[in-house]
């Protein structure tokens, strides 16, 4: 009792949005490193070690060369074929190694940039064939590679013994083949299932003006980490993260697409786009799904979307259309109830600002009440929803099933 009263007492003490924005800007200025930080550090360390050992080996080679030959054979180096300088040999021997070192250091291996090149290539693909077949390989990366003799997809040299993961990543990083169809009050986006070991998930994207929408440039509607999922229904009135959509409104046409995300480095491969008009009239964008029997007209329900993120689930919802008498949003979740609501199914937190429309639930967050023992568990699927609470009653929003990462 005291615990919750204590937490509630602090609930209103918040940083202003402008302060947060300013802070993020300052943080951005301070951080100069790109996103896949750990890999980059690995790459630097590996490159430094290889270069420094090459110097040692060069000395060794000049004397008798036995140590050099034996160690370099591990990299696929054949001492019989090389008569030129040692530095060149080391560079050649390095070529298969970047399976471990995706962002090669330019000074060492200037032609190897597997992470950067494929990203550019496939983005152009959807423009040319909007009804493309699933087998869109990431091959266009070849055109972006600075030297033609380098294969963009690093075909591993036999002795390098690459991990199987890398083999599939080179071959299996295809663009999703997307189709979309209008329903009664929604649009269902479908795509061909991608069988790739390093597929992280799908970002369902849309745009009002951009005919080739892709993540992250155009924001996203949903982040789907269940790689067996091949469709996503977007209701009229649903909110969108980033981009130029805002809220999907009936009678407006949108370009829908899906961007597949691959690997630790989050390579983004955009699928084709399909233009579909959101059904319904623009004047009544209220979603049908979240209708609630107990809520009178003055207590509108909100439209909810949820997606798995980094070690948690991000729940977003549309802002209440009538803040009169608004008390708070309760973020609710359930394992067994596919239509959870507050107070029956407990809550994660409550939000008293009607303008806040998203909340992140970490995968170790606690839960008040509910049917799953007071805390979220990684790997379990939950129905997430928002109950909008007003003076006049509560309105249950639609629920979204997401597996807690």
């Amino acid at each position: 009792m005291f615990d919750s009263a204590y937490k509630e007492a602090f609930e209103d003490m918040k940083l202003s949005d402008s302060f947060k924005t300013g802070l993020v800007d300052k943080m951005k200025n301070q951080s100069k490193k790109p996103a896949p930080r750990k890999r980059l550090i690995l790459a630097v360390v590996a490159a430094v070690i290889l270069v420094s050992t090459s110097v040692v080996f060069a000395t060794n080679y000049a004397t008798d060369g036995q140590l050099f030959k034996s160690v370099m054979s591990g990299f696929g180096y054949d001492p019989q074929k090389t008569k030129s300088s040692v530095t060149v040999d080391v560079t050649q021997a390095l070529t298969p190694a970047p399976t471990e070192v995706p962002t090669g250091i330019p000074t060492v291996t200037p032609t190897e940039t597997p992470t950067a090149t494929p990203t550019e290539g496939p983005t152009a693909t959807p423009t040319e064939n909007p009804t493309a077949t699933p087998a869109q390989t990431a091959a266009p990366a070849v055109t972006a590679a600075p030297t033609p003799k380098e294969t963009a997809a690093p075909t591993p040299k036999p002795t390098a013994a690459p991990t199987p993961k890398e083999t599939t990543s080179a071959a299996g990083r295809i663009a999703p083949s997307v189709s979309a169809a209008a329903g009664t009050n929604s649009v269902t986006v479908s795509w061909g299932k991608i069988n790739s070991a390093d597929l992280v998930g799908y970002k369902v994207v849309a745009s009002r003006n951009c005919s080739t929408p892709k993540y992250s440039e155009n924001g996203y509607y949903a982040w789907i980490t269940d790689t067996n999922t091949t469709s996503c229904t977007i209701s009229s009135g649903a909110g969108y993260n980033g981009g130029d959509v805002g809220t999907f409104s009936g009678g407006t046409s949108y370009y829908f697409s899906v961007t597949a995300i691959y690997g630790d480095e989050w390579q983004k491969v955009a699928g084709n786009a399909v233009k579909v008009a959101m059904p319904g009239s623009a004047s009544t964008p209220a979603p049908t799904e979240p209708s609630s029997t107990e809520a009178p007209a003055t207590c509108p329900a909100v439209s909810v979307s949820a997606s798995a993120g980094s070690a948690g689930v991000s729940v977003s919802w549309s802002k209440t259309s009538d803040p009169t008498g608004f008390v708070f949003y309760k973020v609710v979740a359930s394992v067994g109830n596919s239509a959870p609501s507050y107070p029956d199914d407990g809550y994660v937190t409550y939000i008293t600002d009607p303008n806040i429309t998203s909340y992140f639930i970490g995968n170790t967050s606690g839960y008040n009440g509910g049917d799953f023992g007071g805390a979220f568990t990684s790997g379990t699927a939950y129905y997430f929803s928002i109950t909008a609470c007003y003076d006049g009653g509560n309105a249950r929003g639609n629920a979204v099933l997401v597996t807690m990462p």
Partner: protein
Amino acid sequence: MEDQNEYLTYLVETYGDMVYRLALTRVKNPHDAEDIVQQVFLKLVKNIDRLESEEHVKAWLIKVTVNEGKSLFSSAWRRHTASLEDSTEAEELAVAPQDIREPNDLLTAVFRLPEKYRIVIHLFYYHDLSTQEIAKCLGRSDHTVRSQLSRGREKMRKDLKEVFEDV
């Protein structure tokens, strides 16, 4: 770069208020608390590579906020000793209506506690940390934390006049 920016936004959105509230408990003044939040997050950017998981990030933030509060608190104290008006101003800010709303009496009781109890109470009730975790975080002994917690509770109970029987 885009992902990095997204991640930074996410961190501020997720932990900003948590850090702010903890800082506020420490310094009782929204402006100083904001300063602390900024310093803590700029430090976070520098150390981000070393923090393996989300749990690490959270624990790190709590610890650094507590320490950051300590240093800022002492410098603020030095500032305020120069003029007596300033220190009373800080007291008023702590209970200013625009910063603190219902249930007012509970917050007033918290902010009336001496600093050493306040921080223990906050870590215990807001962050649900165990006394051992708090001890580790503050560099105090478990025994000290326990007695500070019970004394803090005792003081609040008197203040709140048995509104909360289970304090």
